[in-house]
């Protein structure tokens, strides 16, 4: 990181064009958030070292990074917002709720082990009322369902074989809440001659970063990077199936958190479908797929967009015979990770998701596919439809 040019001077290149204002999902639905141009390069001109933060609106940034994509001048708007939010929350002090939401990795194994009890409690109206009242976790939001055994436990009893080894960063949610996505990823990779292994890993830290806890996020990065480096140095590439974990490790570890070794990791880290697309381009993709006569709709998560790799899942899913798949024309589901769980943000989250819900209603699909667990939760919440990771459908098409 060049301290002379970052981040202060980068805001000088803002040409005030307001393209970012046009894509911001939050300022579109609420006047409480002044929008990226104002909260990023605009507010930066008013910030003075030593002044307390007065950025009361900064916590409304949903962290989608669409502003960065829209910026014609390369202003790191979402990073400026993250830095400002960290300062604001450091001074204001975070509620216990934010700690709980961002540290679920600490108790997720226990929650998974006692999953019948956890799930009973999480679904219980009384418990949700209490969580709403005491913790300000909105009672209208379904809490994640825990599964047992965990993905990692399942994998312990699984013998992966293949000609080439590949590392898999599965992420917390797959491990304890959507184990089948992990299984599907393993099966698809194996069907393509790859031997999957799981490097030791912790939460990527994105929930903490998104809640302005740089220290916590950095701690996670410092645990993950050495383990990922080891995998790379042994000659493997690394796959992720959660686009948010991927975005975090690939971009923020190096750029924002300056974690040593992150720069070396980034070029070896691939989105699962990006990797499959690479296989296809080199003629190595297993194309023996059976017919799946399903009407499905695909939604591209914001963090996939900010990876700048196109829509690889859609490219691959289109190879499945009989599958009728359409891209959903909508921006940002509105969940924003922990954002949509918070009582004071729930309404905003729902309002943002409105467009997406309407777009899905128009397509009337049997299933919705998307790469991000947050988007899956939100789309289930908005529509009640069956929502899958694209790899689950691809696995179903394997012969």
């Amino acid at each position, binding site marked *: 990181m060049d301290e002379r040019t970052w981040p202060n*001077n980068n805001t000088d290149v803002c*040409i*005030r064009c307001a393209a970012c204002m046009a894509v911001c999902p939050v300022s579109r639905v609420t*006047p409480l958030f002044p929008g990226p141009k*104002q909260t990023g390069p605009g507010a930066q*001109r*008013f910030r003075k070292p030593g002044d307390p933060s007065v950025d009361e*609106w900064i916590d409304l940034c949903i962290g989608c990074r669409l502003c960065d994509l829209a910026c014609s*001048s390369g202003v790191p708007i979402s990073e400026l917002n993250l830095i400002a939010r960290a300062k604001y929350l450091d001074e204001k002090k975070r509620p216990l709720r934010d700690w709980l939401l961002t540290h679920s990795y600490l108790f997720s194994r226990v929650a998974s082990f006692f999953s019948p009890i956890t799930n009973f409690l999480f679904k219980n109206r009384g418990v949700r009322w209490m969580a709403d009242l005491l913790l300000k976790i909105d009672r209208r939001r379904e809490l994640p369902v825990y599964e047992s055994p965990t993905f990692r436990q399942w994998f312990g009893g699984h013998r992966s074989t293949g000609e080439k080894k590949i590392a898999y960063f599965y992420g917390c949610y797959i491990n304890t809440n959507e184990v089948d996505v992990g299984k599907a990823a393993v099966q698809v990779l194996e069907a393509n001659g790859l031997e999957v292994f799981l490097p030791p890993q912790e939460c990527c830290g994105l929930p903490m970063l998104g809640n302005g806890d740089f220290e916590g996020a950095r701690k996670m990065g410092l645990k993950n990077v050495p383990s990922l480096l080891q995998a790379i140095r042994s000659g493997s590439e690394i796959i992720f199936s959660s686009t948010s974990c991927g975005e975090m490790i690939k971009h923020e570890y190096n750029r924002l958190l300056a974690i040593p070794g992150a720069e070396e990791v980034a070029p070896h880290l691939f989105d699962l479908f990006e990797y499959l697309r690479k296989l296809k381009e080199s003629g190595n993709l297993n194309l023996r797929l059976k017919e799946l006569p399903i009407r499905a709709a695909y939604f591209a998560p914001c963090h996939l967009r900010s990876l700048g790799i196109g829509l690889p899942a859609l490219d691959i899913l289109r190879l499945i015979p009989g599958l009728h798949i359409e891209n959903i024309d909508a921006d940002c589901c509105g969940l924003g990770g922990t954002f949509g769980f918070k009582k004071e943000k729930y309404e905003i989250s729902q309002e943002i998701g409105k467009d997406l819900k309407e777009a899905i209603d128009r397509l009337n699909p049997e299933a919705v596919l998307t790469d991000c667990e947050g988007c899956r939760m939100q789309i289930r919440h908005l529509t009640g439809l069956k929502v899958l990771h694209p790899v689950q459908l691809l696995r179903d098409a394997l012969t």
Partner: protein
Amino acid sequence: MNLKTEVLIIGGGATGAGIARDLSLRGIPCLLVEKGDFLSGASGRNHGLFHSGGRYVVADPEAARECIAENRILRKIASRCVEETDGLFISLPEDGLDFRDRFVRACEEAAIPARLLSQDEALSLEPGLNPDLKSAVAVPDGSIDPFELVLENAGDAEAHGATFLLHTEVTSLLLDGDRVKAVVAKDLLRGEEYRIEASYLVNATGAWADRFLRLAGLHIAMALSKGSMLVTNQRVSHRVINRCRPPSDGDIIVPNHTVSILGTTSIRLEEIEHLEITPPEVSLLIREASRMVPAIETTRFIRAYAGVRPLFLSGEEGGDRAISRGFVLIDHEKRDGIRNLITVTGGKLVTYRLMAEKASDLVCQKMGINHPSVTHTKPLPGAGQRAGLKERLKTLGQGEILCDCELVRREEAEEVFREGKLKNPLDILHRTRLAKGTCQGAFCVYRLLGLLNESGKIRGDSNTILKGFLEERWKGIRPVLWGTSVREEELIESIYKGIFNL
């Protein structure tokens, strides 16, 4: 139209507005005539350096003493206009330490609090400084908003009975023996003519002092010295930065609101109306200022402007930098035999109050009355309120913002229109921070036009008004147009040409 007043003040800069307030607080009726808007001269065209006196302390200790005394007073009475940033006089390797030692001694003698800082201490306060610096001396410099200052003075004067005629130029003086009987003035926007009779006249026209006196057949020797300044997009330091060497070109950086102002040049002029900022001046300022703060080499500039220093020549030799920054008060009764005319000019923005007090004292003396000035203890109406970057940023998210860059709320502009005192819509630029930020008004003047229309107070062809704003904008941007600014300018040009069909 015939008007009558006790004291007629000519010039609506800091001095003129200060005199209007001083006199009206003493209960003396006065009328101020200004050919442009308030602050059209040097008062609105300086770097807003709130001098501690440090800059003049070695060469002109008397001016420095005036500065530090007024500095202390204004912190109390004009707190809303002053940001107490402190200032550093930094010594670079090429400056040597002789001057610094003389500087520290002179500060001591002039009672300017000065503290010698090591390289490390200076860099920890201002990390953007040239890391090669040898040492720094901290003094109570600051930054001052001349617009707020003058408008608060004028507002308070008005509340105590003073009246103003803006955009009105004095065209002739009618002499009657040893006194000025009346002046003829013309409203430059509406064409109306006034014949104003006054018992006493105060010439507070700054750099125009000699020009004005010529109307009475008098002459004083003035050196008109142009000083050009550049405005950065963001602050490059949060303290005033000075070179610790004899005052020279490009050795001041002043943090002012959201920006830093780099100054100045010093070029002798004959012409005072249309000031051009030349490419060599721009290069010189960047080259010199980036010796103090290296990031200036690559930073973005949003505007350049120039002002004329009203320097009074009392006969000494030497360059314009050596002419005293102290002010002069001329009683034309003693000098030229005109009983009811005085001139006050020279000085610094920071000594405006003292100049006003002394000029008003002389008026009182001529009137034979004994009303002491109270301006050194009576706070301006806005005192007590703090206006800082933080306070401004707080307004974001609270209501409609008119100027995105400087966070000027719609209500602020509406308030100015409601008062109904704007003769020229462009004058709103002197009354709010509107259009003083990154885009220099590109994205707010058309919003403003809508407001003007709704207010119904301003009549005229909207395209002409819009062009007026854009020309004012373009004048300041042109000298610093490169890099990112060019990209922005292309966008803005296409908006105004494409959408507004200008």
